[in-house]
């Protein structure tokens, strides 16, 4: 299973990963639209991102959520009807929603954010 691993002890709270993610998927530098969320209210910072546990997959009524052959949970927007049931069942609050975006979104372990992290606080691993 491919997953984005976080190492909060290394995180300096620069939010570069959030910018990278939001820019990639929403073409906006807007942390609200990032699949990874860094909260500097805590020390070390809290790093919230999907761990590919698959809990949401069973909850989706349209089967818009599936697991790809690398073990990553993928959301098919054309099937999604925006019910947000997946958001409610996610045990780690990592299925994200945001104003004006009809479908939820989540980390697909693409690894783009890791390249922007100056301290190696995030890494794609295969478990």
């Amino acid at each position, binding site marked *: 299973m491919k997953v984005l691993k976080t190492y909060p002890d290394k995180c300096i709270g620069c939010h570069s990963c959030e910018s990278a993610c939001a820019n990639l998927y929403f073409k906006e530098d807007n942390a609200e639209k990032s699949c990874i969320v860094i909260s500097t209210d805590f020390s070390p910072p809290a790093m919230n991102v999907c761990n590919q546990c698959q809990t949401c997959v069973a909850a989706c*009524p349209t089967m818009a959520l599936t697991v790809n052959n690398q073990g990553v949970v993928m959301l098919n927007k054309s099937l999604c*009807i*925006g*019910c947000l*049931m997946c958001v*409610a*069942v996610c045990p780690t609050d990592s299925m994200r929603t945001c104003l004006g975006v009809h479908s939820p979104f989540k980390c697909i372990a693409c690894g783009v954010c890791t390249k922007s992290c100056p301290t190696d606080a995030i890494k794609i691993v295969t478990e």
Partner: protein
Amino acid sequence: MNRKLLAEFKYDLAPIVRGYNRRTLYLNVGTREITSKPVSEMMIEKFVGGKGFDLYLMWQGVKDDTKWNNPENEICISFGPLCGNTSYPGSGKSIVTTISPLTGIPVDCNVGGHFGPYAKFSGWDALEIQGKSAEEVIVYIDGDKGTVQIFTAPDEEINSHIFAEELIKEFADSPDKLQFVSVVSTGTAADHVNITCLNFSFWDKRRKVARLKQAGRGGTGTVFRDKGIKALVVKYSGLKVDTNNPVDLLTLQQTGLKLHKEIEAGDATQCRMHEVGTAHLMEVMNDYDLLPIRNFKYGQMPEAIGLHSREFTALFTQGMADGCWYGCSLSCCKAVDNFKPRTGPYKGQPVVVDGPEYETAAGCGSNIGIFDAKDVVEINFYCDTYGVDTISFGTSTAFVMECFENGILDLAKTGGLDLSWGNADAALELLHQMARGEGFGLTVGKGVRAMKAIFAKEYGADPAFLQDIGMEAKGLEYSQYMSKESLAQQGGYTLALKGPQHDEAWLIFMDMVNNHIPTFKDKAEALHYFPMFRTWFGLQGLCKLPWNDIEPANNAETSEPAKVPEHVQNYVDIYKAITGKPMDKIEMILQSERVYNFQKVFCMRMGKGRRIDDVPPYRAMGPVTEEEYLSRSERYDGQLKAKLNIDPIGKTTAEKMKITRDYREDQYQQLMDAVYERKGWTPEGVPTIEHLRKIGMDIPEVIEVVSRYL
């Protein structure tokens, strides 16, 4: 399938605006007329949608003396402005109305499945079906293209579990698009008996079968078949989160998400709807002496352990997204997979059975003395696929079993069927007979009211005894709760407009267990508020369950926990978010009150507006037989002392029963007085003109009917 096109109607596709299409579809299967009717401002303002639109359309279509099988009788199916949103749990309901073959007055059923939302998104706020077709037809609405077509229906198999699936496959664009088609159908029993239903399908993508939800009460399936209709089919492929076009999607989604989270956190310890659906009630009802056993004689029996919810949990496949519409996280529609019936035409074939829900488990289980969960599942399966209402089947079968026990019926009269309590083979055979149109099943399928007349006339049975034990009012069979010890629930059942169904008011816990409504005034207030509040679901196209089958964690600390205030506010919020119109909890009740009173007057117009129609059989109020009295003698003796200051010692059981009965019947009469007054009706149960004016339902045709009775 080789179908001939008999009629076609093309219409423009237009987006929904704030929950409304502002047009309804009229369809006469006899004359083949198909037209679009505009929805007026007045309709929206006074009738809102859903059941309100159904009744309004039906009122124009029928005459005062229309019988269920006259061509002008209508089947109306409507959806309501909130119906079809995918954000708030329980938002996919259709409301079906027709003049019922059991009661002769309008019956209304609230049913899940995908048909309603898809028909709405195809462009219609209601379907109005009239006429009788000489040849068998199906009606097809293509919501992608904008066509309505009537086709011939040479199909051989009409039992729903097969037919719905065949039609879905036939009308879907491709095998990966089956979820965009939904079917309304019934089954072979609807050709022969009156206690029938309509099945509304939804394609279950995981199980790869057509699941079936029932518009259960009042014989809707019989009217459908009498019209020569085999099925209604709808296709709509464009569903998105904003198809209902709300003004404020964000509020709608956030309100839905709040409830999803509440369900995720609370359901497992509250009602366990996700695990076992409404069948979670089985042991709760048995514990409180409320589970109907042997035709409502008793509310508790040790044998009921056989129908404990864990037996059903074990049969239901767990962990599925079992919502009857998208976005329902309560997901109560449980199913038994790979069930192999042991009787009947589908014996040994693996099938998926929807349910049993509580009503079925009680009605087709404990109430007829069956305590094996698998027998209940089999009866449930055949009821659904044959198009038989499990509630009326249970109550009607319980009635004949008690008649059999009392010698009113015997083997000669039942055609050899041994209708002893708990004989599952015999109960199943009754069902198969209904489907084949033969034998004693035909008699049972007429319903309790008709059977009372037949048994008195043909078998010389005592009409008074039959009246006491025959659990029907207005011609409709009671649903499955014991109301003997709850005066408020006796009213909740018997004052219900369509007949004794618990969807207007379920007050047993409030009244009997918690004693929160001790006075007549309290009970009358509850019997005003709850029926009105619950009517609102039927106006909007919503399900009742997510209102109070899940509660916010702090609900008990609110001022009125029985109303679940936070959820009431959710409804206000989502109504505003969808329609953009003002709403508060007072206006909600007023919206309902208009339609409720309209329905009441509609019943009067069809000949059932009298106080006498609101009186229950004594079995719903107290012990009819010595056996019943003695089984709970401590309770009844205690009540003589506590409530009437009468010493039971030295009195015969018959004497004590008489005193108890007189007292309870008098209490019920007093309850009716209090409720009628609270509702703004005369002591005869007629809405006053002044009241109709006050609530804004003083339209001329209503005043005209009421005036006949004042």
